[in-house]
């Protein structure tokens, strides 16, 4: 049994690096990433699990960091948008103008990255099912869908358009 009764320093593995952070038991992962570790690419918006702007990966699985206590995932691999470097999904968003104001973009990219890593051949229905986890206030969904389709074809299927 492990117990954390007060604010204390812990180790977190973020984007492949071990980071030290002072964390209170009530801290959400979202705030630890942004306010303690300075990884502000993960966005804070609804803080209610609705918008998906705070999506990060835990052991490769997308989760909403606003709903997750940091201590719950302290021994897991955490990946944020800063951990992606010119991924095909990022390229897709750039090439297809998959953003408008850009606030929701990192959440969409993290979700789409997990989708395509998990299922490179994801069909349109599956892509839509996954993307419903995120909200774009600018309603730029068409560009976002094109961006992910671009990433799927170019980055994950070697240009093969199977869908």
């Amino acid at each position, binding site marked *: *049994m492990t117990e*954390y009764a007060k604010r204390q320093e812990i180790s977190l593995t973020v984007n492949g690096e071990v980071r030290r952070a002072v964390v209170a038991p009530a801290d959400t992962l979202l705030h630890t990433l942004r306010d303690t570790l300075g990884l502000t690419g993960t966005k804070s918006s609804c803080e209610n699990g609705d918008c998906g702007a705070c999506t990060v990966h835990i052991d490769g699985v997308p*989760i909403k960091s606003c709903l997750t206590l940091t*201590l*719950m995932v302290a021994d897991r691999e955490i990946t944020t948008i800063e951990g992606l470097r010119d991924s095909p999904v990022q390229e897709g968003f750039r090439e297809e103008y998959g953003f408008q104001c850009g606030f929701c973009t990192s959440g969409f990219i993290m979700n789409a990255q997990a989708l395509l890593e998990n299922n490179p051949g994801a069909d349109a229905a*599956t892509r839509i099912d996954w993307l*419903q*986890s995120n909200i774009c206030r600018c309603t730029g969904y068409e560009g976002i869908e094109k961006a992910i389709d671009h990433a799927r074809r170019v980055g994950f299927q070697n240009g093969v358009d199977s869908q």
Partner: protein
Amino acid sequence: MIPFDLRYVRAESAEEAVAAWSTANKRGETAHYLGGGTEIVTLARESKLYTDEVIDCSRIPEASAVETVTEGGREWFAYGAALPLNRIVDGDHQGLLRACLAGIADRTTRNSITLGGNICGMLPYREAVLPWLLAEGLVETAAPRSTDGGATDKGAPIRRVRRPIAELFDKRLKPAPGELVLRFLLPMDWAPSDVSTPPAAPPSPGADGRRSDPTYGPRTAAGPGWFYQRRTKDPRVDYPLVTLAMAEIGDELRVALGGVWGYPARATVLEEAIREAGGAAAFLDRAGTAPGANAGNAGHGTAPGANAGNAGHGTAPGANAGNAGHGTAPGANAGNVGHGTAPGAGTGGAGARRIGAALDAEGRSFREDHRGSAAYRRELAIQAIAEGLAHLATENGAMR
């Protein structure tokens, strides 16, 4: 951000979790068991829940696995309460179970929401419980010895108990203080099975413009036939106006509903009416020959319920007329409440009236909120049930 301090405990076993709760209790503090954390974090942030301690149960081995166990001389699938919903949705599991879980929240959030968290949650929907209500499954809990009225296994720090879910679920799951919900057991005949329409299918607007995505599985030697439909106000992610789950188990047709009332429940009066009629097909057939309906329907010797099935999918005015070859015509509309788009359709038919009367006789208040009025929820429930009955009668031959 949670506006108060709390203590975080990660338990590696049920014994540790229950001991942590007992320790907090002795201090006069509140403690909550934590699965995925989504509801506790949300409610705490909104100051709707206060706790001195959270006990993370996601690392308890039996609470985070699917295993087979023996209970009462039978084999069961035991689903850990700390399993994220997507672990089941994406796995090789029974179709109705996967369908019910796939309707909850959105894809990403289902990576955090756990089976136990949804069923024990404070929101009124708790759709994950529907398969267990239908299957009359079991719940396995671990309780502090001090709350079980005298443990029989003296010396053990906790007492593990498996009980029918009906003993613990009345509108919501009601474990005793400190009792940890560990696993939910389904009979072995709820084996992995296909889903006719994958849960990942895009929302297909029903005739009324709302999401209507029925899925179903055929009755097999190994498992129950079933039907599932979820209707929402928003065509994408939304809480349900109606979630319908039906299953043919033995010679019974069981019906469970979520969203319609303020909590999920079996529609036992309706089930009894169907049983008295001799099954779904006979229930619908009787509806088709009810006073004011087409008495000639039965005389055409059509398969009972077939008309209702056709009518349930009728989408265009006059669609019913095209079913004349099936011996329909006036009276077929009795079952034509599936989408309610053809002239004479809707909830005015005899079948709809019988379903509505049975739902009213359940004695439960229909839920009313900004998504839909009580009357609207009732109407949608009738539509969904009629479609489900028609489907099971025609596709699965339910109890002809």
